[in-house]
């Protein structure tokens, strides 16, 4: 009890009784408050800028770059870095810089699809299970468990490897969704289980609200923090999985290219032709690192318990 009130007493200190204005700067929306908190997380802000640059590189880069990612007879074979080909060229005669852009684009497309689809499906699944509890919950979560038993990369490889003759990025993405929604469901269910015990949910029920209203108006918006964090983590996992999949020979197939495939073909070149080895690897690290830092920043910004005393 005292902890709760001291938070009020030490916060902006709105007076009781006939209310007087609380914050002088006018009303802040939730999003403005979250953004203000997020901006204070330096690593997350740097990451956001960096990730923006990577996205621009992946999606806008190919529009202006003279070379394509496929084999081109105008491209010399096995050339070192030059102004024309900053990351050199491959033996087959492709421009590694263009390939990196294409690979990053494919990675991001897969990752975003996985994150969005899995989050929507998983959050709904978890919220329904957590809201109804009891047997419904037990059965729904056992179903989710089945998809969690098989490691993601292995599951995707089993399906993927069997499909010969070129797998497209969205096929890879959809198969990954099948095995990753359950992690989100598990997280959201946990949050909803504790949220639904809160009095504002009971208040809605006492007012006569139906289950759909409670789940979509009250439970999911309040679980937004953990959901968004889970989604960002999922992006990173998806990038790594897709790349790993390509590395072991499955996933996106030639003539298309992915970052994992590039690492695979340059795997012995780390010390001999580093310009082939480092760009795709560093790019994967950068994408995942920035996403994780952004997730961390969002977690802090969205956590209602986050106090002002930090450092």
């Amino acid at each position: 009890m005292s902890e709760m009130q001291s938070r009020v007493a030490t916060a902006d200190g709105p007076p009781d009784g006939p209310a007087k204005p609380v914050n002088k700067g006018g009303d802040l929306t939730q999003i403005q408050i979250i953004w203000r908190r997020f901006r204070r997380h330096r690593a997350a802000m740097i990451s956001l800028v960096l990730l923006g640059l990577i996205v621009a590189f992946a999606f806008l880069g190919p529009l202006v770059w003279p070379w394509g990612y496929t084999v081109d007879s105008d491209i010399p074979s096995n050339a070192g870095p030059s102004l024309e080909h900053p990351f050199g060229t491959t033996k087959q005669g492709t421009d590694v810089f263009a390939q990196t852009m294409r690979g990053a684009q494919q990675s991001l497309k897969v990752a975003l699809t996985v994150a969005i689809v899995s989050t929507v499906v998983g959050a709904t699944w978890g919220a329904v299970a957590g809201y109804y509890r009891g047997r419904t919950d037990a059965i729904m979560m056992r179903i989710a468990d089945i998809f969690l038993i098989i490691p993601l990369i292995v599951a995707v490889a089993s399906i993927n490897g069997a499909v010969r003759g070129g797998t497209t990025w969205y096929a890879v993405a959809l198969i990954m969704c099948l095995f990753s929604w359950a992690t989100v469901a598990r997280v959201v269910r946990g949050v909803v289980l504790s949220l639904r015990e809160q009095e504002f949910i009971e208040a809605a029920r006492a007012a006569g609200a139906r289950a759909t209203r409670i789940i979509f108006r009250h439970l999911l918006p309040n679980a937004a923090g953990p959901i968004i964090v889970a989604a960002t983590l999922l992006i990173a996992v998806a990038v790594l999985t897709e790349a790993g999949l390509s590395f072991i020979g499955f996933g996106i197939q030639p003539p298309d290219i992915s970052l994992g495939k590039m690492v695979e073909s340059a795997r012995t070149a780390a010390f001999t032709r580093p310009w082939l080895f480092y760009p795709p690897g560093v790019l994967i690290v950068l994408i995942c690192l920035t996403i994780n830092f952004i997730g961390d920043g969002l977690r802090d910004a969205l956590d209602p318990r986050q106090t002002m005393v930090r450092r």
Partner: protein
Amino acid sequence: MTTTENINDGATATVDTDIVLDVQDLNVTFSSEDGPLRAVRGVSYRVRRGEALGIVGESGSGKSVTSMAIMGLLPKTAKVSGSARVLGQEVIGLNDAQISKVRGDKIAMIFQDPLTSLNPVYTIGYQIAEAVLTHRKVTKQQARARAVELLDKVGIPHPDRRVDQYPHELSGGMRQRVVIAIAMANDPDVIIADEPTTALDVTVQAQVLEALETARKETGAALVLITHDLGVVAGHVDRVAVMYAGRLVETGTVEDVFYRPRMPYALGLLGSLPRMDEARSEKLTPILGTPPSLLDLPAGCGFAPRCPMAQDVCFTTEPALEAAVDGDDPDPFRRHTAACHFGEQLVDARPEDLFQATAPAAETAAGPDGTGGAEAAGHGGERTDAAPPEVLLSAVDLVKNFPIRSKGILRRKIGEVQAVSGISLELREHETLALVGESGCGKSTTARLLLQLIRQTSGEVTYMGQPLHSLSDAQMRPLRRDLQLVFQDPFASLDPRMTVSDIVAEPMQIHGRGKGAKQRVKELLELVGLNPEHGSRYPHEFSGGQRQRIGIARALSLNPKVLILDEPVSALDVSIQAGVINLLEDLQDELGLSYLFVSHDLSVVRHIADRVAVMYLGKIVETGTTEELFSAPAHPYTQALISAIPLPDPVKERTRERIVVTGDVPSPADPPSGCRFRTRCPKFANDLSDEQRNLCVEEPPDLLDRGTGHRDACHYSQVVELI
């Protein structure tokens, strides 16, 4: 206990061996992203050997931070300056090794929440022995023997068995006694108890306070008792210090502070306290506003913005803590002091002279048609008098058993918690019925059953003659307009992601009345005393009291006839609580509402209710009009409850007669046979013969009028006057 013989020492000696704790100009500042937060400012006090000092204040006043600073338990980010001497030794600024030698040996501390204070993975014996072994060169066997001895002293039965149990196997009251035993372990010179009973039920609170007294006697330690509860202070300390906004604002003997306060804040606190020993006709006098933000303290007196007698000087100059008019003790630390420019104006002032109730005190408290008295006569069973008001909501033989299920997919039923076991009650038009009991007695479950938020195992609920228990959720929905709920926790009961307007308008939207909602929200906010322009804000921008008002506005949005109030003020500070109570009373008069008021606080109940029903372990043990119940309680449990509520009046509190119960509430999964209260009943234990006891063991007593004018459920009920 008193220290009169030491007056001369105090006046002359500078190094006084009798002073065990000497705090001088203590300041604590936390750094926060909004700037420095000055939690404690210039606090000085002295505690003598064996003395008990009470530190009183509302949450955020800095009372806990002060003691944590003395113990060196604040996080490193806190800046502490000033001095605190324990037996002459400076403890501020010591390193970990040095302060560790003092802590637990010379100065011990007891914390608020016994459920989290003990490490779950070690036995209680280990945790007590650890305190001994840390400071004494003894063997493990000796430390364990000491642990058993201490457990016995704090009143834990079978200490030799309990010593090997883990904390989760003990009740909250038991665990707090273990914490007290740990504090006693090395016979400290000072024990600081930080809200030691706030998390406990009243009957258990009385037991734990008793254990604390034992600890004092056994160790001869001085006690610093930190609490927000003026009643606890009145009965257990010699001197009081009142804290406000990080400063001490008044100090003196309990009698000085309670009977002759010289600081308007102290006077206001006393006025905003509902009292069990006073009739309800008097309106409470809340202190308007909230304490200032510690980030942005006013230049002058911290209380000036809320003070009705503030003058210009109060806003510019902060008053020093100076001797009040009646201060004559030669030792400045023992005088009655107050930090107020105009303290002398308060001589003989009463709270209502200074503070005003929020609305003109209309004398309608007993109900518009004088049901206060009519009910008393009419409720014995034979309703003969002129037509009593219509029954709105009634329950007959309501039973709710919660299944205890196994984990896993099968979720087999492995037991039952009998939360509510056959409750019948009636709520009439325009009356307030209070449902009183300690935690776990089933009062909140009953409230939810009445609203059909959970479904009963058996029994009937009717609203205006219409049975609710057989309705489907869809059929129930239109009826929810008339029956609304207000919650205990103002922080959890409002959706943090919705604006206040949306929150208040939600019930209207659900019931298809979204059209005029905007205008209605403004009216409602105004009605509950909030600025209607603030609808676009989010709940976190409001204080606890304001949030509770928002919750009330939401409940009122559909023009209900019945409000079920589940502990609506128990999470609020005293000065805020009074305002909400007054609001509820005004709304009832204005809108003709009926209240079912669920509460554990008999003082509030006495103030607000027309009729009271006391619950224990799922059953009503006594019911009657408020007047009957408080003046002539017949059931031993009611008597014990009334006895356990501390009165904020030092003389009354120390001299009153008490009926004390022992032990903890049995598990509702396995309630005792016959009378459920018999395992804790003082009458059963002390007064009854074996033959008489048989009846208690075998026969559950019915709720009958046994010649007292109201109904009770005790085979041997007998009226005792306690107030």
